[in-house]
């Protein structure tokens, strides 16, 4: 089979990252050019990958429609319509019904049903005006013979209008106008009353429409659902969705019916889940449902309460059977929710489903499962779960620790806990973390001798490799420091030194520090610690301690942090090194280049270290002798105002002035200075310099005239 290079590349991109939307779009474009038989495979993959993206479903369906495979289209709609509340998809559905069913005798009923169905599901959408308007137009177009039928038609049209006019959406005004006209057309007297009754609700809905429009404006509602990637764009979308949902929760319609509110909120959640299905929004949605359900219960509406609670359950069900298939968090939340409803069978199935997932770490699942069975069915059942866990190959040592501690804390049976630890020791004897948990347990029992025996057993056994035994030695030393006498302490210390001879060579003082330190307290300042090389010996041997005791880690790292912080901000950028440059003070220069006579006097805002020696060669300054300049000012005679204005307005004169070219210019400057001197101190004259006007400034000229 020939596959173009372009497509092969796209396919390989999709293979690398199955959520590469750009590549998928390329594939879609390609598939659209092929007949459906050939493209169907691609489309199927697409909708499996993005099951919540209405646009992709729509493209697929439209492609099938082109080839008139109506049976296939029907099946596709069955697969997506109920789950994907996307306005585009629903519009597509309505046009499909219109197109295919128009020949049938039951067309009118079918179509009306379809419209009712659509309005029920997606009528709340902000863009749903078209559906409402189409429905009304459809109803108006139905033939009605006889006054009874006509009345029925009026009732039907009126019903749709009345529902639509209180439904916040874009273009609601249009619908209202049409409705008013419609009522006027039937009976002007009744119309007034009818409309007056509804005006308040309509105005309310119109207000909410505006707010809703503002709320949803920046939402990218057509984005395909992809797993979180931590980009800024994504974070923005998440926060916008949260804002929108929060807004709906605050009941913008000011409705008194809890059902209406929860319906609107759930619609918002459903819309959000189409785009953010890989985020744990599922939990929030279910949480909302269950809390509303509780509210209903308090109000005494048991029936709705039960419905909502079932809805929450089915929402969880949808989550774990679709995009959240392997997400532990949602599974646990679902299990706890069902446990709250006393449906223990269900909880068992949920855990079982999670455990059925192959190739994934089931440690935490087993631990949670054990905790649940202990709560719900007692310790015996929990032991059975533990037994199952032991037979599973996918678990890590944590299950043993959890089981042992559960026995110890719940049944207070020290011996059983002890046995479990021993059992685990056979399987996880090489895991220092497991050993530490065991040791901790022993130490807490206050059985000093047993603990010592355990230490000896661990340290002499062959299952623990010597490079991992450092933490155990440290623990042993700490233990002896706390409970032992000096001689046993020294003994452990020297044995430890023997075990790590090469590393502790010449660092016996470091060992002394280990003996005296307590929590994050050290017997000498950090500078000395570093000088002793203490840091190195510790970090190589005890990586875990820094995790358990972050404060000691921060002491060790303290020296480096300040540098890191400064470096972090500029990471990856080259910073100009001003020591390699020379300070420079921009100054006006000789009129080598065309210049304006209005150039300001160089300002003195740079620091004093300006080095004029190094100023680039070709811009040597015309150094002004201030005294001579002042003499010139004193000597020069000012031109009369008329002369000067003439000069400016004629335009030619201004251009030829230059600082170096003599008298006229100096006179010119004199005029300007005197005009600003009249009304200002130094500060404002600086300002007037900064806003040097262009040469042909009649406004300025007039202003100066006025000053005179």
């Amino acid at each position, binding site marked *: 089979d020939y596959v173009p*290079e372009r497509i092969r*590349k*796209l396919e390989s991109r999709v293979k*690398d*990252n199955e*959520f*590469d*939307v*750009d590549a998928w*779009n*390329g594939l*879609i474009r390609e598939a659209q050019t092929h007949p459906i038989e050939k493209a169907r495979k691609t489309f199927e993959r697409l909708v499996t990958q993005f099951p919540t993206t209405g646009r992709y479903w729509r493209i697929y369906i439209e492609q099938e429609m082109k080839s008139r495979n109506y049976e296939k289209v029907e099946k596709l709609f069955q697969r997506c319509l109920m789950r994907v509340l996307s306005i585009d998809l629903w519009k597509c559905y309505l046009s499909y019904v219109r197109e295919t069913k128009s020949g049938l005798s039951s067309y009118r009923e079918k179509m009306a049903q379809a419209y009712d169905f659509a309005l029920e599901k997606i009528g709340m959408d902000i863009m749903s005006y078209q559906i409402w308007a189409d429905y009304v137009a459809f109803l108006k177009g139905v033939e009605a013979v006889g006054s009874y039928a006509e009345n029925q038609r009026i009732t039907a049209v009126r019903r749709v209008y009345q529902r639509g006019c209180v439904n916040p959406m*874009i*273009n609601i005004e249009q619908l209202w106008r049409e409705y008013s006209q419609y009522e006027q057309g039937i009976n002007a007297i009744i119309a007034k009353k009818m409309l007056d009754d509804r005006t308040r609700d309509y105005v309310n809905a119109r207000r909410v429409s*505006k707010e809703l429009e*503002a709320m949803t*404006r*920046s939402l990218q509602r*057509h984005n395909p659902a*992809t*797993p979180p*990637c*931590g*980009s*800024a764009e994504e974070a923005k979308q998440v926060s916008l969705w949260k804002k929108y949902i929060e807004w709906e929760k605050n009941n913008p319609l000011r409705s008194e019916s809890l059902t209406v509110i929860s319906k609107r909120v759930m619609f918002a959640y459903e819309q959000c889940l189409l785009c953010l299905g890989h985020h744990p929004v599922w939990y929030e949605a279910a949480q909302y449902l269950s809390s509303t359900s509780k509210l209903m219960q308090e109000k005494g509406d048991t029936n709705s309460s039960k419905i909502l609670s079932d809805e929450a359950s089915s929402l969880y069900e949808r989550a774990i059977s679709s995009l959240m298939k392997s997400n532990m968090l949602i599974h646990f939340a679902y299990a706890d929710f069902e446990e709250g409803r006393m449906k223990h069978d269900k909880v068992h199935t949920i855990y079982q489903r999670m455990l059925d997932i192959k190739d994934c770490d089931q440690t935490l699942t087993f631990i949670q499962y054990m905790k649940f069975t202990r709560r719900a069915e007692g310790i015996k059942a929990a032991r059975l779960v533990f037994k199952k866990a032991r037979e599973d190959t996918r678990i890590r040592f944590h299950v043993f620790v959890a089981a042992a501690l559960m026995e110890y804390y719940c049944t207070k049976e020290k011996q059983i806990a002890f046995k479990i630890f021993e059992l685990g020791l056979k399987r996880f004897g090489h895991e220092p973390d497991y050993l530490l948990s065991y040791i901790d347990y022993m130490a807490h029992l206050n059985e000093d001798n047993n603990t010592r025996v355990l230490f000896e057993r661990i340290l002499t056994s062959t299952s623990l490799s010597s490079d991992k035994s450092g933490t155990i030695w440290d623990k042993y030393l700490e233990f002896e420091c706390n409970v032992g006498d000096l001689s046993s302490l020294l003994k452990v210390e020297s044995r430890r030194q023997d075990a790590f001879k090469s590393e502790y060579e010449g660092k016996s003082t470091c060992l002394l520090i280990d003996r005296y330190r307590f929590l994050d307290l050290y017997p000498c300042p950090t500078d000395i610690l570093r000088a002793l090389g203490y840091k190195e010996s510790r970090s190589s041997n005890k990586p875990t301690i820094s995790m358990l005791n972050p404060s000691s880690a921060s002491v060790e790292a303290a020296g480096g942090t300040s540098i890191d912080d400064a470096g972090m*901000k*500029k990471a*990856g*950028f*080259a*910073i*100009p*090194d*001003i020591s*390699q*440059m*020379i*300070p*420079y*003070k*921009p100054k*006006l220069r000789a009129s080598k*280049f065309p210049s304006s006579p209005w*150039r*300001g006097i160089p*300002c003195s*805002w*740079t*620091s004093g270290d300006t080095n004029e020696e*190094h*100023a*680039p*060669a*070709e*811009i040597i300054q015309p150094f002004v002798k201030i005294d001579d300049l002042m003499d010139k000012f004193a000597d020069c005679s000012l031109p009369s105002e008329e002369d000067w204005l003439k000069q400016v307005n004629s335009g030619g004169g201004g251009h030829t002035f230059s600082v170096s070219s003599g008298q006229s210019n100096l006179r010119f400057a004199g005029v300007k200075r005197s005009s600003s001197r009249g009304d200002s101190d130094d500060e404002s004259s600086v300002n007037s310099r*900064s*806003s*040097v*006007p*262009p040469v042909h400034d009649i406004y300025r000229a007039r202003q100066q005239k006025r000053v005179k």
Partner: protein
Amino acid sequence: MDDIKRRERMYRSIIGQLLNDGYMAIAKSLTAQVKPLNPCTPSEFLFKAFSAGVDQVEQEKLDQSYYPNSIDSVAPGSGIDLEFESDVQILSPEAMQYETCYVTAHKAPTRTATFSKNGQYIATGSVDTSIKILDVERMLVKSILPSDINAMVENTNQGMADHPVVRTLYDHVDEITSIEFHPTQQILVSGSRDYTVKVFDFTKSSAKRASKTIKEVERVRSLSMHPTGDYLLVGTYHPVIRLYDLETFQCFVSCNPADQHKGPINCLSYNPTGNIYASGSKDGAIKIWDGVSNRCVATYPEAHDGYDVCSAVFSRNGKYLLSSGKDSVARLWSLAAPGRPVLVYTGAELSGKQAHQAQAVFNHTEDYVLFPDEQTVSLCCWSARTAERQRLLSLGHQGPARRIAHSPTTAAFITCSEDFRARFWYKSPVSD
């Protein structure tokens, strides 16, 4: 010395390969030109070395390949890099497919515009001394909604709350010639013909005036902000390029006066890491500067056949420099191989020479090069990798387009014109 030897060996193996493959004539003429010390024998060495090299390069590329779901990947694609194969698939739209989304008008010719680094804001500057800051998202919303809804929104006077022009800044007294956004903060720097550079903090919606001013002694023509936002390059009518520390507002220049241009500075731009910047001048030369020491490290004299250099921008990987000049030709320079451009984008000069400056820019994926043609008021577009001409886009301005700026993140650009208007162009990513 090692380099020369290696090069010698390369040519020898080229000749060897040619002989091996039976291209005697070419081998002979090449031998005559290269004049190798020893006679070359037919060998397959070059092919083997090439195969090994290609494998390794591809492996390296794979290692650092592009994952859309990782945090660093900002824009789609990896940008232009001619060292890797040139048949990269182009998914971004060509110029022809863009549509005008929004038009904003100043009271005088509009001559400068820039995008913020995250593509969220656009600033336009005009001869009427005002600067407008536009919100890209709001402009898109305006264009997506049907016009009757727009009218409705404006009638109910909600319009101001989401008007695309988010700020209008008035503090200059002459034409705005250059604008730059701070890379991370809501700060805008503008240069003007009124001899000042002003710093605007537009965090507050009431911002109108500059918070700080640098007084220059020449008309400011070009600005470029260091990628950290701590330093600013200022190019003026005067040939010396100034570097301002934006914290202290002190000014520095290269310690070697001979480094400087001989004419007014037309354009300045830092590369994405800030270790290099480029300048183009009216004297016809492009200079490459070391961003750390501020010394000139390379000069391309007469880069555009002696015409003014009007723009110079780096590619995202910092390996290439795209320049344009008053000869209406855009050139792509490789920093690794100075001296001659690696690609020349021609065709725009056929309609006649331009009188004003114009800029050549990359699109956001660096698949295309865009250049506004002054005579026909249309936008030329080339494939960046092959210099193949694409269809023209008529810009619809009533006067020459004086500035084009492309968004760094999406398929959007803005054009500013002598007809007082700035047009915002966009291509929606949704495939239809």
